[in-house]
């Protein structure tokens, strides 16, 4: 297993390089000039060519692409991801500021989704008929509801009508822990709705498959309680596809909480990414992509190791 992980990490490093190269190429292929954008008023007059050229020079955009790429790589290797075109803040610092918030939100949403999705899916698999139909309707609504819609509904209900929770925003933990946690609830729930529905669906199918296996009958024959049979002999064996989906979902959430971050005005990584893409803030985009790539690749390594834990037959 150790060798396996070492190889995977080495391959992972290569992949990050590949992603870096692709993102660099992609950014320069996509139209939109950062200098023009920086010097344009929201939707007002355009800057003079002289100003644009001057700024391009200052941002290093007039160098040949190869040189820019090389500098970028050198930067990455030395841990310097450059400074934002837009805010002049060091990219490492802006990511360091935002990543923990996104991570916290995503972890919370993931845990919530697991806590809701697995029991729901199991219930649907075990009790057919009306229960199954109800759950399948609920989960369909769950996957079909755009977060921006569901999020808005949550805000209307819990912030504006009931006034229980803040409509959005973020309070640092050290500033006010209670407000911090309160601020997590609505965005977390909004994210978890779709995710838990997905988990529930996968769980239903997987559990159904396992419930028909002979060893479940064996477990029953020894008088294990239904709950224990379910937990240890059904769910445990049904976990592989669920783990896959959770791993994937977690990774995808990391990079795509943008809509939730918007609706709840949650200053996370994703909104920074989207903003930076729309303003063509190359260093920030590149920096975030590196971070997300590293996390994705690590998650996948973890998931693949988990496969071995879950099913001894696939150990290597």
């Amino acid at each position, binding site marked *: 297993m150790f060798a396996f992980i070492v190889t995977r990490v080495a391959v992972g490093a290569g992949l990050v390089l590949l992603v870096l190269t692709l993102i660099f190429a992609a950014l320069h292929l996509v139209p939109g000039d950062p200098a023009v954008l920086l010097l344009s008023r929201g939707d007002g007059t355009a800057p003079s060519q002289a100003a644009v050229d001057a700024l391009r020079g200052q941002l290093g955009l007039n160098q040949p692409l190869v040189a820019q790429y090389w500098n970028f790589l050198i930067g990455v290797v030395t841990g310097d991801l450059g400074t934002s075109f837009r805010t002049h803040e060091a990219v490492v610092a802006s990511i360091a500021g935002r990543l923990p918030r996104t991570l916290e939100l995503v972890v919370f949403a993931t845990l919530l989704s697991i806590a809701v999705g697995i029991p729901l899916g199991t219930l649907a698999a075990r009790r057919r008929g009306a229960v199954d139909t109800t759950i399948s309707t609920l989960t369909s609504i769950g996957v079909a509801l755009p977060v921006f819609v569901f999020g808005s509904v949550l805000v209307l209900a819990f912030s504006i009508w009931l006034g229980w929770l803040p409509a959005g925003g973020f309070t640092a933990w050290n500033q006010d822990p209670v407000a911090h946690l309160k601020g997590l609830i609505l965005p977390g729930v909004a994210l978890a709705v779709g995710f838990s529905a997905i988990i529930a669906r996968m769980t239903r199918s997987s559990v159904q498959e396992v419930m028909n296996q002979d060893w479940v009958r*064996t477990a029953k024959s*020894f008088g294990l309680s239904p709950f224990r049979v379910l937990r240890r002999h059904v769910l445990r064996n049904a976990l592989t596809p669920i783990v896959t989906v959770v791993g994937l979902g977690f990774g995808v959430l990391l990079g795509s909480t943008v809509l939730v971050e918007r609706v709840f005005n949650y200053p996370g990584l994703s909104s920074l990414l989207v903003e930076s893409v729309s303003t063509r803030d190359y260093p920030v985009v590149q920096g975030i992509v590196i971070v997300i790539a590293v996390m994705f690749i690590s998650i996948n390594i973890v998931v693949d190791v988990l496969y071995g834990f879950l099913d001894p037959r696939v150990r290597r």
Partner: protein
Amino acid sequence: MSHPLLSIRELSVDFETAEGWKPVTHGVSLDIVAGQTLALVGESGSGKSVTAMSVLALLPLHTRRRGSILFTGEDLLCVPDKRLQQIRGRDIAMIFQEPMTALNPVYTIGRQLIEVIQSHRQLSTAAAKERALELLRSVNIPEPEKKFDHYPHQLSGGQRQRAMIAMAVSSEPKLLIADEPTTAIDVTVQVEILDLILELQSRLGMAVLIITHNMGVVADIADRVVVMRNGRVVEEGGVEDVFVRPREAYTRELLAAVPYLGRAEKFLGGLEPGLAVTESTTGDMTTTVPVLELTGARISYPGSWRKAGFQAVHGVDLTIERGEIVGLVGESGSGKSTIGRAVLGLLPLAGGTLKVHGTDVSHGTRALARQRRGTVSMVFQDPASSLNPRRTIAQAITDPLRWQGIQLRGMALRERAMELLEQVRISGSWADRYPHELSGGQRQRVGIARAIAIEPMLMVADEPTSALDVSVQASVLELFLELQRSYGFSCLFISHDLSVVEALANRVIVLQKGVVIEQGSTRDVLQRPQAEYTRQLIAAAPVPDPTVQQQRRQARTTG
């Protein structure tokens, strides 16, 4: 007769099918008294397992039970689930027919044992582990400390079966239901397992319901016998009565088909093993290449994570000439299945050479594997797990034909499937059933039909008849001999049933701990065994005669 512990009255079980409720058993009644052993025997597919599983309500969903099942006066058909849960495992424990699929693949057998032990008794994990090891030892699993941490797939068929038995007896139940508990176990171990059961019986007054096809086992331990056929009880009586004075024609038929070690000539209607082609005429060994030639074969299982690998076979030499049936017998866990899998190219050789039809295929490249195709086939030891659950049995049988491009037309394929099914005595109308809709023996026969479908030159048959009643077994063995005669197919026949080996094999190879300890012609090995282990094997082989068994048992206990 004292008050029965378990009393099954007029039990009928129906399965729901697309055509409505289909009865499987009809009004089965039987009684088991505490301290006694009842053997349930009969045709494969007659409803023995279904009856046994009805007791603890373990049938699949969409089945219906009618009648009554009285256990210490309580009708198990009507007790609430909570009560049933208490009874299961503690009062009544069950050994399932197919141990591969009956064990959870993701837990070590140790953990599964501990779980069962703790389910009805408050025991610390350490104490439970102690008890688990003790149980593993008592069912004769070698190196129990090591095997404790093995997953089911890392065990041999017999080892899994013994793990299953250990789980079942762990709670020292009042009633033990054992569905074919010793099919994968060699006779020496089988004796000890049966001893274990009898010991529990005498110590705790445990009642035993044993389902078996092995008349030797019946003769050995049963007090009473119930014979089933087509879902009905056809005969019931004391073991002596049934063996000596069978009343029903079916029972007589059944007993007549029982192979008896040392009396092979009476078996199989006088058919005798065919002669190997090489021996037959000239005796000139150089003109034909052996079908299979293993020299110095070493086979290992790879380790995983921190566990080291395991070498299961240490330098085995084995040759099968064209048209020869070679019996491979030996201790459970000695590497028989391992050799079989290596021959099929499913496991790589760690050393030595493997030649099939003279071609060296030791380094299983793809091209070589393709050469093997169409000529070598296998009956897997565990029929349940070796059949694709998503293919009907007809598809399962004909898939190899399509894969090998032997026959590709739809109707023809189906007809061939029907024909093959009939050959193993399964009605062609069952063609569209899925494996899980069959009884254990039926599944095994599907495995056999699949293996003969491609008319292989060489077949590895791993315990192909262990789940078959003697009459079906006889027809399957006849089929083998016929194939041998008709086109000279060769077979590596792995079995624990020495009488079957005697009836079928030209030569016998005895394996112990991954090493060949004796080989020679069937007659030589079985009648003049050289190795100590072989002698033990032969001595331990049960014979279908209650009186003889009684004497043997007495001899063992006194001596």
